[in-house]
């Protein structure tokens, strides 16, 4: 499963970059995220409740940032186990480009699921992942809008 997307964010690149590295922002944007904790500058642990078709599971896992190129982008990778529901792992390469006062965010993501998730939900995975990615970036753009930015 692979996805690509692009979002225009009404905020300067440096700010977008900082927020992309901020656990609290990530927590608010990752759908179903219950907790996220920073282990180091490039490592977090996270707990996410996700539903794929008939399977709903709580995933505990690790989020790693790599290929860091501040403030132009990074690769964010996650790997989580959902107990008897199986596992999910994925990564996204995020590139930030300045466009005046705004920032263009481009991402390319890929993911894989296993166990019961793959067994029951294989034909639902793509749609679910796309929906989650959409929701993440919609929330992220929302969090970066001027009102929200000044309000925080």
């Amino acid at each position, binding site marked *: 499963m692979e996805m690509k997307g692009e979002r225009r964010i009404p905020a300067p690149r440096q700010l977008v970059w900082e927020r992309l590295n901020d656990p609290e922002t990530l927590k608010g944007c990752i759908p179903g995220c219950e907790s996220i904790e920073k282990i180091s500058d490039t490592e977090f642990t996270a707990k996410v409740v996700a539903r794929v078709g008939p399977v709903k599971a709580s995933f505990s896992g690790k989020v790693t940032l790599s290929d860091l190129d501040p403030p132009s982008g990074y690769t964010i990778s996650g790997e989580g186990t959902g*107990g008897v529901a199986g596992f999910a792992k994925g990564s996204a390469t995020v590139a930030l480009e300045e466009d005046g006062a705004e920032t263009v965010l481009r991402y390319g993501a890929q993911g894989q699921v296993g166990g019961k998730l*793959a*067994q029951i939900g294989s034909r639902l995975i793509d749609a679910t992942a796309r929906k989650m990615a959409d929701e993440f970036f919609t929330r992220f753009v929302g969090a970066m809008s001027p009102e929200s930015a000044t309000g925080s």
Partner: protein
Amino acid sequence: MADGSIGTPAIGASVRRREDYRFLTGQGTYTDDINRPGQVYAYILRSPHANARIGGIDTSAAASSPGVVAVFTGKDLEADGIGGLPCGWLINSKDGSPMAEPPHPVLVTDRVRHVGDHIAVVIAETLGQARDAAERIDIDYAVEPAVVDSVAALRPGAPLVWEQAPGNVCYDWHLGDSAAVETAIGKAARVVKLDLVNNRLVPNAMEPRAAIGEFNRATGEYTLYTTSQNPHVIRLLMGAFVLHIPEARLRVVAPDVGGGFGSKIYHYAEEAIVTWAAAKVRRPIKWTADRSESFMSDAHGRDHVTHVELALDADAKFLALKVSTLANMGAYLSTFSTCIPTYLYGTLLAGTYTTPAIYVETKAVFTNTVPVDAYRGAGRPEATFLLERIVDLAADELGIDPAELRRRNFIARDAFPYQTPVALQYDSGDYQTTLDMAMEAAGYAGFEARRREAAGRGKLRGIGIATYIEACGIAPSAVVGSLGARAGLFESAAVRVHPTGSVSILTGSHSHGQGHETTFAQLVSDHLGIPIDSIEIVHGDTAKIPYGMGTYGSRSLAVGGSAIIKAMDKVIAKGRKIAAHLLEAAEADIEFKDGEFTVAGTDRSKSLGEVALTAYVPHNFPHDELEPGLDETAFYDPKNFTFPSGAHIAEIEIDPDTGHLTVLNFTASDDFGRIVNPMIVAGQVHGGLAQGIGQALLEGCVYDTETGQLLTGSYNDYAMPRAADFPNFVLSTHVTLCTHNPLGVKGCGEAGAIGAPAAIANAIVDALKHLGVRHVEMPATPERLWRTIQEHQTRAAAD
């Protein structure tokens, strides 16, 4: 025809199934219906990965979770010296070396080898608690690349499933005369070649597998309730090879079982787990598979990749057949997996034909998938599919009608016993007659008019013939022993005549939908001349039945029924002696007929009931000569396989715009030998056809080739056939008697699944051959058919 609820229905009557009342009213007793006092529940933690090294398993959080009684891993079993699951058939390779036989642990310790592989068991007060606790088991996996298909597994550098099996090869077996085949091919007028796949199937019995283990501390006895087709075999395998429990202290009960199709023959890890753990926790333990677990833990079926060549002379007589097959074994060797693509496959490649030279080689391959074993037909559908496809292809290439090409090559009805070049000797058959019957019933002669009519509506219509032969009534013990079987394949029966003349039959056959309680009762009613209502059929409990090898390979009537006949004959022989004593006549003058022992030529007689009462109240009894009682046991070992055969014809129509296929007509003319209950036989054929047509059109098990994930793991993605997918089947039977069992019966359980796939595939190719289509793989889904049509139309347009 006799209704059968009363009286003594003859063999050949469609007696209504006595067992159906309890099944249809929800009063059957299946394993999951059984609950034992103090019972706890097991949840098996399974691998989400196809191939991963296990660095460590931390069960501490799970063990302290609410309701948890115990958590066990493979290390606990190892510590108790528990063995692996055994394989029941040794196959030797071409060079004489034995097959690679890697371990098959009950719970894995260091590596998982397929999605669904069992890692740990959590036992808790409720199933929910067990499942929740399993979530808290922490496993350190190092995921490695996986390989799921047999072709990829043989490529250099493919992930290795077992170190013990270099190149992932389990064995490289062959049968037949290679030199004779090459010579024949060299001088043939034509050689027809085809590559084909026999798609992997998931058995999908209606009742998922279940097991309850129980240990009685007071007596030291173990009891296993399990969804098995052969409880004695499980007792032997689990007791002797896995848990080291003597037979006398292990009782295995297989109560009502809701379908098996082969998948419930084998000894599964869960049976050993609950039995072993029940003694550990001193409480009965129940495990019941959910449907997802069934998909990834029941042994799968088929999964062959084959190249076939058929050589013909100028008169279109078959000269030679050459077959090369890759058989996917999965990650472990299931109980009878190794004999399926060899002795239940290669030996059937003569089919119904006189092909004088045959050579078959089968390479069995390990992959990171669920083990593959027998599934309805087991090897014989695979043999029939390739044979009937290549025959049809030859007919097309030669411009001969497929029925005519078959007629030229059939073994003649007066040629029996017929020795094939692949070990089997057929005892009887009449292939031309069953084909003629099927062609008549299918309106074969008028097909071209129907094809034209359909073409006028823009539809592509096709007709396909498949003839088949099976080797059933499995099997002569000495023969299979010489071929590597690690078991005998006889059957036992006890006939217990009670003091007032009612009868209990204890049979080693096991009914899991076949209607034995009716068919066997008819046999007994006919043979002993007593009402069917006074006959009880008991099966499925090692504490009750003398012994049993169980039900599979269409063996229950041919082997189990023959054992019942043998035991009844012993009862009659003893009864004759008792009657002679009572009637003060010579034993030689006593005739037994319709339940009466009569002094020949007189009206002086004693009924079976009177003789039985005398046997149990032996006041006036020949004590010097006989023991009291009327209770006889017999074991029957068949002299040969039985060879059911027949012809199936499918007529289909394809919508070229959508690829949608409709089965318009399906005709099956079968020779099952003597038929005891035509209604039950028809039911068996219907079920077999449903599964055979399901394989041809709908069913296919798919793994992700990169990750090894099971993609068709639910009914969302694995298409089971439904009633609306079928027309009304047109059935008929033709009888040639089996020559070597007392009933003359051959067996009917698998026929539908054997003939149907090839008949459907031939009909599809017949509908599409004007486009240049030579073959369509199964399942021929609308998408596959649509793509095939598009590709060939595009190619035709380009030419």
